[in-house]
Each structure stands twice: as C-alpha cells, then as structure tokens.
C-alpha cells in the first residue's frame, strides 16, 4: 500500500455500548462491544478484522454500515462524515458502502427471485427502464459466475456457494467503493470457499473495491488481506501489514491466537510451538481493569493489572501492550500457562 493512497473509510474513536437490564431492580449494566476503535481503509485495500467471538468484530461491521448506531466516535466514508447521517443520506452512503453477510440462507429474501434480489439496489440507486435493468442484472450475475438462467430462480434452489455469489452480485449492483465482508465464507465448504474468495479477489483487481474482511479464519485472512487488525474485548490490540504479522506477532494474544490455529500440515503439527491460553474470553459486561488481556496473558505483571496500555507504535505496527517490542519480550523462559481460573 503506498502512503498516498486515498482513504475511503475511516473510523475515529468508535464506541458502541449496549445497556443491558438484567432485572427490574438490578442496576443497568453495559456491554462494552467497541471501545475506541480507530482504523482507516485505503482504496482497493483489504483490511482484515480478526478475533474470537465476543471481541466486537461483527458489531464493528454493523456500526460501519450504520446498521447499529455508534455510542460515540466518527465514521467517515469518502471524506464525508456519516456518523449522524439521516435516512436520505444513508441511502446515498449505501451506494458506496455495501455488506455481505455470513449466512447466505438468512440474507436473501426467500420469496424473491434472484433477478428481483439483484435488481433491488439498482432500482433504488439508478433510474433504468425494465429492459436495461434486466440487462444489468444478467451482467452482474455473469460477473459473479452465474448464468442468465438464475434470474428466474429462487434462493432455495441454490447451493450455499451460489447464494453467496448472489449476495455479492447484490452488493455490487450499487457500484460500491467498499464492501464489508462479515465472515463471507464461514458457512461454506472448503472447496466452495476457495471459489468465493477468488471471486472477491478478482472483483477487487478489476473494480478497485476495498474490503473490510471480518473473519475468525486466520489462514484465510493471511491469504486475502493487505493489513490485519486483531481485536480482543472491543479493542484493537495489534494492527500491522499482513507480511509483517506473518513474520512476527508482537502482542501475546496475537501470538497465542495464531499458534492455536490448526495447520493442515502434519509435518508441522509436532514441531509447532503452540501456546495454549488459560481460560476463556472474559465477559464484555465487565472487561478486566488494566490491560483487558491480563487475565489470560502468560506474561502479565502488576502493571498490566493496574494500567490499561494504549495502542502505540512498536516497530512496524501498532500494538496495545506495555512490553511488546521491548527486547527480551516475551521472556525466553515461558512461564507455564496458569491453571484455568473460574
């Protein structure tokens, strides 16, 4: 990515809190889904957001799309602040910013034909006559690898991979600069995943679309993205170029996350230095004080429990850890992962 590349999407200090009331007299508590997310996306770039369930990655997708109202912060699309855009302005926004969801069974209206589904955004954004619209639908379906015979079909007649192609065609219909892909292939079989991923890459190459690619599949993310942001409990804890991250992970959570992902190579299985974290992600209702990762971090010290680390520059990236990037960190003699605490 050249530094002069135009920024198409930006989030500044994005916050999303969900109040939850657990009982009539219980004090309202707050789920800290997103706490101060900063990120930028350049034209034609792919930024991956990775993390485990509850880290806030899907909430981030919804906030960027304005499908959820952020509690605080700003969202800037193509230079325009859309944080508080009204209905009409939102419609304009969605010409440029589209989303593809994980579940192609839930995201397509089962009563509509494929032709109607793909034509809908065209109807909304362009004034074309029926014939021109139909031609455009056929052209879009061709772009995603589906023949004109699909126009008359309904979602239930399609396989998962074909449905996801339809969802992509629908996203393309408005001619967006940015597509947010929220786990777009997680529901698909491996052989079909490759087809859809290649389609997304081809579209990026030909149309210069930028992707925010949300996924828990670390191998896939390393394949498709230019940069990777790792999230934990509503915060970005490390963000780096994919190549840099592949070589070295600075945050202890990133290290554990990447080491835990199974690798389809039995020769590496034995030699891999797997870090097995103790316990599970704490509840976002009460994120731990200090560093949010300290309850599971094998290297946590007193400072980590007391003081929240900022996202700071370390080497070639940003990382949210007091010690990351220091020489001698992580310590050579790894303390064994502590017994799991309840």
């Amino acid at each position: 990515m050249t530094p002069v590349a135009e920024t198409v999407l930006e989030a500044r200090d994005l916050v999303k809190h969900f109040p939850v009331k657990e009982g009539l007299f219980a004090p309202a508590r707050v789920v800290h889904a997103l706490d101060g997310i900063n990120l930028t996306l350049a034209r034609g770039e792919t930024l991956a957001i990775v993390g485990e369930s509850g880290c806030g990655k899907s909430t981030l997708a919804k906030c960027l799309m304005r499908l959820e109202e952020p509690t605080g912060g700003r969202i800037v699309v193509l230079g325009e602040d859309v944080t508080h855009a009204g209905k009409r302005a939102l419609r304009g926004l969605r010409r440029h910013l589209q989303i593809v969801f994980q579940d192609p069974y839930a995201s397509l209206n089962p009563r509509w034909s494929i032709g109607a589904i793909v034509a809908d955004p065209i109807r909304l954004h362009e004034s074309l006559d029926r014939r021109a619209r139909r031609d455009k639908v056929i052209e879009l379906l061709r772009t995603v690898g589906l023949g004109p015979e699909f126009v008359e079909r309904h979602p239930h007649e399609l396989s998962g991979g074909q449905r996801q192609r339809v969802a992509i065609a629908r996203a393309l219909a408005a001619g967006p600069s940015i597509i947010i892909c929220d786990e777009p292939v997680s529901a698909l079989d491996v052989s079909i995943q490759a087809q859809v991923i290649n389609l997304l890459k081809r579209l990026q190459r030909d149309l210069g679309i930028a992707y925010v690619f949300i996924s828990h599949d670390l191998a896939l993310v390393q394949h498709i993205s230019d940069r990777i942001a790792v999230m934990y409990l509503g915060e970005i804890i490390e963000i780096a170029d994919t190549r840099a991250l592949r070589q070295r992970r600075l945050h202890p959570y990133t290290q554990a996350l990447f080491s835990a992902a199974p690798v389809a190579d039995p020769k590496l299985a034995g030699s891999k230095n797997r870090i097995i974290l103790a316990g599970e992600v704490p509840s976002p209702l009460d994120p731990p004080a200090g560093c949010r990762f300290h309850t599971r971090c094998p290297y946590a010290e007193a400072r980590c429990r007391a003081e929240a680390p900022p996202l700071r520059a370390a080497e070639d990236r940003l990382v949210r850890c007091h010690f990351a990037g220091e020489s001698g960190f992580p310590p050579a003699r790894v303390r064994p992962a502590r017994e799991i605490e309840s």
Partner: protein
Amino acid sequence: MSAVIEVWDLSVHFRTTLGVVRAVEGLSFAIGEGETMAIVGESGSGKSTVAHALLRLVPDPPGKIVAGHVRFEDQNLLDLSDAAIRHVRGRRIAMIFQDAMAALNPVFTVERQIGEVLRLHLGLAPDRIAAEVVELLRLVGVPAPEARARQYPHNLSGGMRQRVMIAMALACRPKLLIADEPTTALDVTVQAQVLDLIQSLKARFGMAVLLITHDLGVVAETAHRVIVMYAGRKVEEGAVTDIFADPRHPYTRGLLEAAKREETEGAFLREIPGTVPSPFEMPKGCSFAPRCPDAFDRCRMEMPELRDVAPGRPVACFAAQGASR
C-alpha cells in the same frame, strides 16, 4: 495392532419424497487400539451419518442401515437388540457432538447429568456419585469443579459445556470415543484447549477415537489415519502423513490445495470447480468426475472401485498411480 472396531460394507439410505438418498455406500474401515481415525469430508459426504450408524442412532424412518457389519467386542452392533445397543452406547462407545448445549439437558445440573451416567451404566451408589462427578470434572480441566457441578448448562461457556460433555462421555472409560465435529462451534484458542484435552485423555485411557470433521487442520494435528469421503463413499484412506504428503485421489488433492492459504499469498486459491452433485442426480460413473481435472471417458461411465495403490492406501480412482505423481 488389533482392531477395536471393524466396519464392513456399511450402507445407510434415507427415503425422502424426492427419492432415496444413499448417504453412505459400502464403507469399510477398522480402528486400532489407541488409534485416532479421522473421517473428513464436506457437507453431504455422509461422514456424520457414519458416526450415527455405528451407534444405531440413524432416525428410522426416514433412515435405514441397509447393509453392513460392525464388529465391536465380538458382536455385530447392527444385530443387537435395542436393549443391548443401549448397553454399548455411552458405556463402551461414547459420543460427543458439535453442539454441547443440545446434548445436555438444560433443566438438570451438571452433577445430575453426569451422575445419571454413573448410576445407569456403572451402578454407582448414590453416596459415591458426587465425589466421582467432581473427579471427572477435574480430569477434563473444569475449574472449581465442586461449584460447577451444581450449575446448569446455561451457566457455562461453550468451552466448559464441551468439557462437561467430554466428562460425561468418559465417565464409563469407553473403548471408543466418537467425536462428531467436537470443536467446530468453538473459538480457536478454546478449540486448542479441547483438542489438547482429547489427546491427553486418549493417551491416558488408551481409547480409540473416531473423529468426524471437515477441518483438515484438525486432522493434521490430531489423527493417525484418515478416510476421505465424497458423496457417501470413501475415496481414499491412509496414514495422515502419507495422505498430506502425497494425496492420490484428485478430490483429496483439491481439498488440500484449497486449504493451503498462507502459502499462496497474493495469488488465487486453487479451487475445485462446481459443487457436490445432488443426491438425487448422482452422475453415472465416478461421483467426482464432473468436478475432476483428470476425468476421462471411463470415469463418466463407470464407478471406480477402491484399490490399494500402496499398502494401506486404498484409492477409488482410475487415474491413481501406484507410484507418486
């Protein structure tokens, strides 16, 4: 190595309004003592049906085990009476599932559910049950087991539920553990914990494991041998190291290529074109032929039988060679 379980020629069909689905056709395999056998395949390959058939859990109707012989501890599981197979289930062969919430009863405490297994299968006296439950929970790494035993499934996280289900499965020290996508619903750091747990318990109790999964990474890291299934049939079997180093069936090759992601930075992924054929419109010859890069005329006319291309390496492909390609 003597076999813990031997399966011959297992076929399971489902009768539907659209026709008969041959979910599993003519499947044979054996699992040795202490061995982990993986069955890998995509949706519709029949891999889960195999797991259900071994314990006679295929819903009938619409399903039916139409042929086969499953030899386990000197008896044919497919011949047993309902009472006798219940005795095997849970006691000699245990099963864990992808969705622990569905496998646990939401209205009973953890202690009551695990205790029931101990009482029913082992006839443990009521006063010994509580202590044994706590012991089992400790074994599977549940923290604060005394407190957890009194909780309900909804109080537990996904990883903890999976551990409770494993504790239940291990209560009777089974000879064989069938794990059907045991970590698919879990996050990757928790998945690592659970796979690690299954491995260590297997070593400790000398269980054999049948692991059903779609995840080649999980296969590479946990299994000794692997069966690759496609459209209800075994297309290839072998030691995990051999299969990954030198896959002989074009489908296995395609799957492994598609899963190689980090190495293909920037470039396009290798894809397998097309989709799995509909069970109602199975092609005449090899069911993989329509998607196969190497298919020739014979593949489209005739179903290839499994044949050994090397010792312990059956492959169902006309083009598969004895020597490495």
